[in-house]
């Protein structure tokens, strides 16, 4: 188990002075991620909030090597970095052990970068891909993505008189990654920081590709209080909006089974993106039905895969 004092004494590799919004969940993810991975790590970031806020020339928040190529290709780029690393190691030009981590937002991961991610995972590169999942294209101004939850209002799925926000459920990217039969796939939430840190360490230790999807509260895009980001990360889990689980070599494990489940509304109505659902309780019911089904399925998968 990770220990706060230990983490704090080693520090992280993501310095302040970045231009993320106050209360940004993505930067909390990067701080924990870089602290868990340690100094011999190379990051490859997709175009998006976290890349933009952290590398405005001549300022960089990265205290470890960082590379940005384009929006849809951070996994392919990282697969090139990893191939170079292996080739140079084979030729004796590098002797250090180096972690390679690619990351992107949900737009760069679920949507435009899905092909690149799938290819890199299928080819078996030893790299960890982390998606900071805030459920919309926040960097361009809160447009819907395939990770936007049902009912959420975004600038391209605005809640209007006829259409009440996004009318499709989220794409289940974590399951798509599991279907790639890679050794390690997980979902995490920053509230369970210890679980997240352990997952990063586990992922970096497998001999092959790994993927972690982390819920990333976004005060601007969610219409939530900047101070509420950590609280929302807890509520998302205890309402089953977001499941904290892993799939290691095909075996599922739900890492957090909320002892006291909370009503979905507690999570939803701390966010402006869902406020129109107050007048549309049938949509809340539909979201609840979908989330419960997901959780029940997850319980079954946990049971079946461990039999």
């Amino acid at each position, binding site marked *: 188990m990770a220990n706060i004092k230990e983490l704090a004494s080693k520090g992280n590799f993501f310095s302040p002075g970045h231009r993320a919004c106050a209360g940004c969940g993505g930067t909390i993810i990067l701080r924990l991620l870089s602290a868990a991975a340690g100094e011999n790590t190379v990051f490859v970031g997709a175009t998006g909030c976290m890349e933009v806020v952290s590398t405005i020339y001549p300022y960089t928040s990265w205290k470890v090597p960082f590379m940005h190529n384009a929006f849809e290709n951070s996994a392919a780029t990282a697969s*090139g970095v990893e191939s170079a*690393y292996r080739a140079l190691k084979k030729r004796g030009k590098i002797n250090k052990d180096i972690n390679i981590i690619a990351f992107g937002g949900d737009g760069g991961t679920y949507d435009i970068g899905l092909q690149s991610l799938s290819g890199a995972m299928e080819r078996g590169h030893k790299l960890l891909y982390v998606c900071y999942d805030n459920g919309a294209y926040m960097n361009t101004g809160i447009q819907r993505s395939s990770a936007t939850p049902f009912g959420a209002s975004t600038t391209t799925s605005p809640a209007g008189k006829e259409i009440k926000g996004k009318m499709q459920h989220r794409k289940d990217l974590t399951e798509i990654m599991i279907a790639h039969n890679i050794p390690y796939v997980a979902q995490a939430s920053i509230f369970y920081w210890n679980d997240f840190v352990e997952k990063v360490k586990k992922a970096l230790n497998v001999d092959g590709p790994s993927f972690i999807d982390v819920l990333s509260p976004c005060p601007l895009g969610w219409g939530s209080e900047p101070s509420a980001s950590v609280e929302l990360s807890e509520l998302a889990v205890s309402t089953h909006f977001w499941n904290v689980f892993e799939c290691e070599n095909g075996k599922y494990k739900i890492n957090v089974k909320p002892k006291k489940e909370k009503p979905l509304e507690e999570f939803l109505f701390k966010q402006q993106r869902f406020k129109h659902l107050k007048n549309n309780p049938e949509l809340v019911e539909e979201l609840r039905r979908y989330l419960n089904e997901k959780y029940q399925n997850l319980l079954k998968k946990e049971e079946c895969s461990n039999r």
Partner: protein
Amino acid sequence: MTKIVAKTGNEAMAEAMRQINPDVVAAYPITPATEIVQIFSSFVSNGEVDTLFVPTESEHSAISACVGAAAAGARVMTGTSSQGLALMHEVLFIAGGLRLPIVICEVNRALSSPINIHCDHSDTMASRDAGWIQIFSEDPQEAYDQTILAMKLSEQLFVPSMVTTDGFIISHAMQRVEIFDDNEVQEYLGEPKRPYNLLDVDNPITVGPLALQDYFMEIKVQQANFIKESRSKIKEILNDFNKKMKRDYSVVEKYMMDDAEFCFVALGSTAGTLRYTVDRLRKEGEKVGLLKVRFYRPFFEEDIVESLKNIKGCAIFDRSDMFAGTGGHLFNDVKSALYNSSSRPFLKDYVYGLGGRDIDVEDIESVYRDIKEFTENNGKGETVKYITVRE
């Protein structure tokens, strides 16, 4: 010691890649370039090279992986064509901006639509502004030599290169090729040189940052200036290549130009047919020559202007069209190069061979008659003519 073998353009490029023995090759199949990486992957499978081969799921990912690998300090190559190069388009500019020494073996093929697998230069021309060196090959020999040369140029200048052959005409045509010894190639290239190294965890760098209004222009002007200055360095490196590897290449190649009054200007495989036609016309007493442009990017403006200074009428052969109503790419570049020159020949563009349409000696002879007439009429009339087309 060199040896003589029979190779197609694709085989010759694959052979050059084997001898270069890059650290990483990331590629995706596309006609007519598929063979290059196909042959190369058999070298990988048989342990003839130390390369790590990354068979990506698209050309976009292939060039993205090349960018990642090159930033990480590896010697990197790939091969592609047409739609593949077009799919790489976005990342070509990034590789240029990041100044990564990547070499692409590019086989010229028409861009869709209609879809077509045969040669024209629309694919390479569409990427001419990406900040890459672009070298055209006339035959498998040049394809082979220039692949090795390109690696050297890219690593000396920190500018990526694409070496092109003409689809099927060169890529699949077998010719005599003189091959260097493996160790000669290794000795010539030496250890890879890199502008920076992402994997140096002790000296962490940030590659590809966001640069806004306060710095973007400085970074791009630096790149533009470097490319401008690179022309003299390319000449030095080419001379050195000629000396060490016993070749006789120049950035633009003049044939029978000394006393010529008229000339043809062209890129790639058509130069061979043009040279043959020049010989035929010369036998009839016509004062005609050929200017073959080897380097299209950077554009050797001064050399071209100098070569054309005593020419009365000049026929530009373009295997691509800009769809701007002003003809092809080479024509427009040559035309603007000549604008401030005191001695300007009459220029006319002959767009030919799109989608692999053949061009033969008779076509070229009629171009010769046409450019003569155009010149005698002081350049009156249309300046762009589509040839090898049913009227």
